[in-house]
């Protein structure tokens, strides 16, 4: 005779495997002194152009590298390699997001102590990446002016998992009649106090302020690690 059904308490985070790997990565990154920035956005919002600009400009002052995730092709890694920074592609196959173990495996034998910044470009997707911690210090969410001002209201979860918002392709704002004040209002509505940078990777407009911000965050991170 089988025993009576009963209820047992469990309390386990469903993503505990991912969180454990992410935690180990964070410890490893901190020990190596590398500041890790991840990027999320919908497909086509200009993540790769933005990252190429970031790598190219940061390279004169810092040691930088990037991991880039895509469902298929190595096109983005080829594009980013033009910045002369070390770049590795993570091809996820059918998986719509990066997981911490993929980041760990892609890092392989890279000597993290030789880096100041590591960038991780997630798969273009505003839904799935929000659930997965990658061990990053800072998560940027990109919103292109061509996507419309209400993206934050449609995807509040991803905006809440990110630390900083970037409004990209600002050079196209007039052409698409982008409503800046409404976009800023919507971002603050779903994530009060969120830091926002408005820039164009193409013209370089607004990029300096964002790069200075990254440099400050790197310095802060190293100062707290040294305490």
């Amino acid at each position, binding site marked *: 005779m*089988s*025993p*009576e*059904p*009963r*209820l*047992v*308490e*469990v*309390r*386990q*985070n*469903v*993503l*505990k*495997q991912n969180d454990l790997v992410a935690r180990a990565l964070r410890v490893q990154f901190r020990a190596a002194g590398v500041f890790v920035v991840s990027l999320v956005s919908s497909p086509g919002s200009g993540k790769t152009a933005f990252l190429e600009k970031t790598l190219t400009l940061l390279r004169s002052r810092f040691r930088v590298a990037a991991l880039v995730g895509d469902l298929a092709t190595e096109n983005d890694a080829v594009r980013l390699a033009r910045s002369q920074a070390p770049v590795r592609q993570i091809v996820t196959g059918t*998986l*719509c*997001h990066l997981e911490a173990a993929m980041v760990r495996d892609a890092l392989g034998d890279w000597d993290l102590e030789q880096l100041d910044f590591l960038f991780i470009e997630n798969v273009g997707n505003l*839904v*799935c990446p*929000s*659930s997965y911690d990658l061990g990053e210090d800072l998560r940027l969410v990109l919103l292109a002016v061509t996507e419309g001002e209400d993206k934050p*209201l449609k995807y*509040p*979860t*991803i905006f*809440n*998992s990110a630390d900083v918002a970037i409004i990209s392709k600002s050079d196209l704002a007039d052409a698409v009649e982008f409503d800046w004040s409404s976009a800023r209002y919507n971002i*603050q*509505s*779903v*994530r*009060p*106090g*969120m830091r926002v940078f408005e820039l164009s990777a193409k013209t370089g407009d607004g990029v300096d302020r964002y790069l200075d911000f990254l440099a400050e965050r790197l310095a802060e991170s190293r100062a707290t690690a040294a305490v």
Partner: protein
Amino acid sequence: MHELSIAMSIVEVAQEEAQLRGVRVNAVHLKLGALSGVTKVALLSCYEIACDDTPLQGSRLIIEDVPVEIFCAQCGERRLLDSVQLFCCAECGQPASQIVHGKELEVVAMEVQ
């Protein structure tokens, strides 16, 4: 659509816990936050698929929705959000970014025998 991988992780967690206790699982109770990034309907259908050919085949997934709760620094109180599009205190209207609940994706209990 990442609900299938989430469902497979739920089955994995439940299987581990069942093995530790030497029991069979009839149902898994899950807390699902409104900001977890996971859709309930999709998760329920993926759960069945994830259970196939595992000891959990035929078990049920029982989902408890967890609404977003913020801490209002102005009032010094926790408050439920009226809308995930508007992060502000429902009482005083101050913007509030400290999330207390709503990101849960957690197996909290199992019905076993």
